[in-house]
Every structure is written in structure tokens, then in C-alpha cells.
């Protein structure tokens, strides 16, 4: 794994990095299963959770991850902060940084915000979701979950279905799954696809029925009604009928195919309520793995000083002298 200071996009990682992070995640899953799930790896470190957009799971997930590594997590709720009094993002970040923190997890409605924030702080910046752009830790949790069930992802077929246009999860996962050797297809009506797919490692179709029997992962996206301003689908009922994972479609999935969703779910919109509770739906496991994956990311960014160590040399020497 290369030394990494920030994690802003799945583009920051190559396949080796992803493998390293997922292997480390496996270790943290084991820690999470202990009676006392806490290790001292980030003792004395402080992580600020700076959220300009509503979030429950990502925020709690990062807070849990930090505390399992013995780091302090400071919540920064924009609705109750000086940003509400007109303070700029830059001033907010510089203020927080002046308090001597080691990591900033940023959730922001503006795509690209973490790239600017990176210039205003010495702390490591982790993108916790920026607009419609990227959500790398969600993608890593999804890759981990998929790999755990399917083994290596080379040649696996992944359909990412629904509101692709407004989804940062779709963008991060398209890159993530493709880097792991999987074949990714976006399934959505034209109105919910990005204007151009040029440069994306994916194909696209408007017909879920065409691919449903061939895929190993059916990844449903949340219909982001709050980001849709131009009525991209006639009705949600019609969308469900055409692009939702109905019980009938779920029956046609091949044996062992996974049903995934980043949450929060709109039951009976992108996924039939009953389907979300089937044994091959790993949606709650994605959430659980999210904590372990964020432990791995936090540790690699702010805990590890591997950049100071010549790869392996120290460990070899120490195990020799034990």
C-alpha cells in the first residue's frame, strides 16, 4: 500500500491499495466481534466529523470506527454551528484545524468540496460524500461485503440500478468494482443516467430484465427525491415496475447473487419491501462492514507511519530479534 494522506475518491486507490484496505478491514471485523471491541491504535488522535448534509449512518459509522480505535471523534453539526451564522467553509475548516486535529471527515453538498478543504488544513481529509461526486468509504464497504460472499471479484457482473445520475455511491462503486476486475453495468432510464458515460469503466442499459439473470450483484440505489427537480420518472410506481427489484425479478437472480443497497432504503420504490429481507440481501451487513472499513481508512490515513518505514524492513528485523 502506498502512503496515503487523504481519501477523496476511489480514483486515489489502485487495486493493491484496495486489497490492502480490505485485508485490514477483515482484521477490524475481528476486533469488532470481541467482547471489548477497542484497540489502542489511534490513542491521542482526534477526528472531526464535519457534516454539511444530513447523514445518520455515515456519521455514526465514522464515530464508531474512531472510538473502536481509541480516537476521539468530535461531531460538528453545521445546523448548530457558526456556519449557520454565515461563516465560510474555509474559515470553518481553518478554525477546526487550529484546534489540532488529525483527521477531517467531510460530508458536503458541493461536489469537489473535499479537494478545496485539503488545501486549507494539515489534517488528513476523508470524503464522507460530496454532492453527486464520490463516497469512497461506502464503496470500500460494498467491495468488502461483495468480496466476502463472492470471493475475488474478477469477472463478476455488477448491475448498479436506479438513480445513477444523482448518486455518488454509483460513481464510487463503478470505479471500485471495475478496479477489482468486475464488469459494471448501469441500469436506469435515460433521465436518470449521467449526460455522458465517456471515460467511465461501465456500460449502460435501460432494461433490468435483460441483465437480471446474469448478474452476481444487484446494487439498488436510493431514489434521491431531494436532488430530483425535473420529474425524471412519471411516477414512483411506474419506476418500481420498470426498474425496481420486484419479487418476480429477485426470483430470477442466479443462485448466490447478492442484493445490495447503500441505504436508506425506499421500500417498494427501488426495492420491494419483502425482497430487502431475503437472505441474499446483505444490506445490514454493508452497514456493519462500513464500521470496520472506516477503521481501516482512519488507521491508514492518520495512524500508520508506513511512509517512514521501508516496506517490511522493520518487521523483518523485529521478528528476527523477537
Amino acid at each position, binding site marked *: 500500500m502506498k502512503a496515503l494522506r487523504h481519501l477523496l475518491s476511489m480514483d486515489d486507490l489502485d487495486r493493491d491499495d484496495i486489497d490492502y484496505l480490505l*485485508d*485490514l478491514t*477483515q*482484521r477490524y471485523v*475481528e*476486533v469488532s466481534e*470481541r*467482547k*471489548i*471491541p*477497542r*484497540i*489502542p*491504535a489511534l490513542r491521542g488522535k482526534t477526528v472531526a466529523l464535519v457534516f454539511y448534509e444530513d447523514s445518520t449512518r455515515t456519521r455514526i459509522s465514522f464515530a464508531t470506527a474512531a472510538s473502536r480505535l481509541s480516537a476521539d471523534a468530535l461531531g460538528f453539526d453545521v445546523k448548530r454551528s457558526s456556519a449557520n451564522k454565515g461563516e465560510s467553509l474555509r474559515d470553518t475548516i481553518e478554525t477546526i484545524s487550529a484546534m489540532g486535529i488529525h483527521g477531517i471527515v467531510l460530508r458536503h453538498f458541493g461536489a469537489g468540496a473535499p479537494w478545496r478543504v485539503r488545501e486549507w488544513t494539515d489534517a488528513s481529509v476523508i470524503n464522507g460524500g460530496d454532492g453527486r461526486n464520490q463516497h469512497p468509504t461506502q464503496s470500500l464497504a460494498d467491495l468488502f461485503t461483495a468480496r466476502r460472499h463472492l470471493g475475488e471479484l474478477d469477472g463478476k457482473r455488477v448491475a448498479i440500478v436506479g438513480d445513477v445520475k444523482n448518486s455518488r455511491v454509483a460513481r464510487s462503486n463503478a470505479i471500485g468494482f471495475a478496479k477489482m476486475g468486475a464488469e459494471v453495468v448501469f441500469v436506469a432510464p435515460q433521465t436518470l443516467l449521467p449526460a455522458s458515460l465517456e471515460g467511465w469503466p461501465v456500460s449502460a442499459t435501460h432494461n433490468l430484465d435483460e441483465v437480471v439473470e446474469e448478474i452476481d450483484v444487484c446494487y439498488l440505489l436510493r431514489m434521491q427525491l431531494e436532488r430530483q427537480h425535473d420529474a425524471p420518472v412519471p411516477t414512483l410506481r411506474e419506476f418500481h415496475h420498470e426498474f425496481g427489484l420486484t419479487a418476480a425479478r429477485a426470483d430470477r437472480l442466479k443462485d448466490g447473487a447478492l442484493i445490495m443497497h447503500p441505504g436508506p432504503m425506499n421500500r417498494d420504490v427501488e426495492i420491494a419491501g419483502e425482497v430487502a429481507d431475503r437472505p441474499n440481501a446483505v444490506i445490514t451487513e454493508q452497514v456493519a462492514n462500513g464500521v470496520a472499513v472506516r477503521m481501516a481508512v482512519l488507521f491508514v490515513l492518520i*495512524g*500508520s*507511519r*508506513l511512509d*517512514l*518505514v521501508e*516496506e*517490511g524492513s*522493520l*518487521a523483518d*528485523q*523485529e*521478528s*528476527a*530479534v*523477537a
Partner: protein
Amino acid sequence: MTAPDVTRAIRRMAHEILERNSGCEDVVIVGLQTGGVSLAERLVSDISEIEGADVPVGSLDATMHRDDFDLRPIMSEAATVIPVDPTGKIIVLVDDVLYTGRTVRAALDAIHSYGRPKAIQLAVMVDRGHRELPIRPDFVGKNLPTRRAEMVDVNSDGVDLGEIS
């Protein structure tokens, strides 16, 4: 030490563990990754043979509890398997070489995140001195005075002493 010396030392330590604990009731043997794991398995097979009873054996990777964790690459293959809830048990930690004591300190921390043992004992094949912490072994294969510049290698052929190049 030659391989037969190591075999005899393991046999003796198995007897000592049984003597100290008046048998093997509640005893759990836990090998420290990576050097202690095979020794733990050999100890358990000797104990079972002597006592005619099964003793649970596990492995523990204490890397994440080390004080220099951030400077060490993580070995993803080193597994921690604690076969039973350690609460109320006598845990015998097993390692190949006892040196500064830092690995053992980390292991003491790590084991407590699984439960609260009644007692923890330490068995090592080689005690080479140079402790940096107040830690001492309960069962020792061989006391081997060394210089810091030397290295101790415990392997299937026995124990070797060499220079760090």
C-alpha cells in the same frame, strides 16, 4: 539447542504447566503469532498425551495492541483464534523468544478484550534477556544470555544464535 533438545524442553514445560496448575482443568494454551503458534500446538499435544485430556489451543495476534503498531506493516494472515471465553480460565501464553517484553505486554492487553482470565501464565522457548518491562516468564525452555546485536532463531531444527548483519 538441537531439535531433540527443543522436544525435551517442550516435554518438560508441559509437565511444569500441569504441576503448577494441578492438572489441566481450565487451562487454555494460546500461541502468540507467529512464532508461538507451532510451539503452542506441540505443548498441547504433549499435555494431552501426559494427562489424557483435551486442552483448548488458540492463537493471538497482538500486533494491534503494540506501542509501535503504527510503524509495523500489518500481516493479514496472522489470525487470532480464542477458542473459548477466557473469563475464569488459566491462559498460558506461548512464544518462541522472550526479549523486551513488549509483545507480551500487548498480548496481556489483547487477551483482556476477550474476557477476564483467572490467571495468565507465560511459557517461552528462549529467554534471551534485555527486558524493558517488568515481565517474567513462568516456564522457560532455555535461558540464553545474548547481546542485543545477536538474533535468536527458533525453528524446526532447534534454536540458533546469529549476528544481525
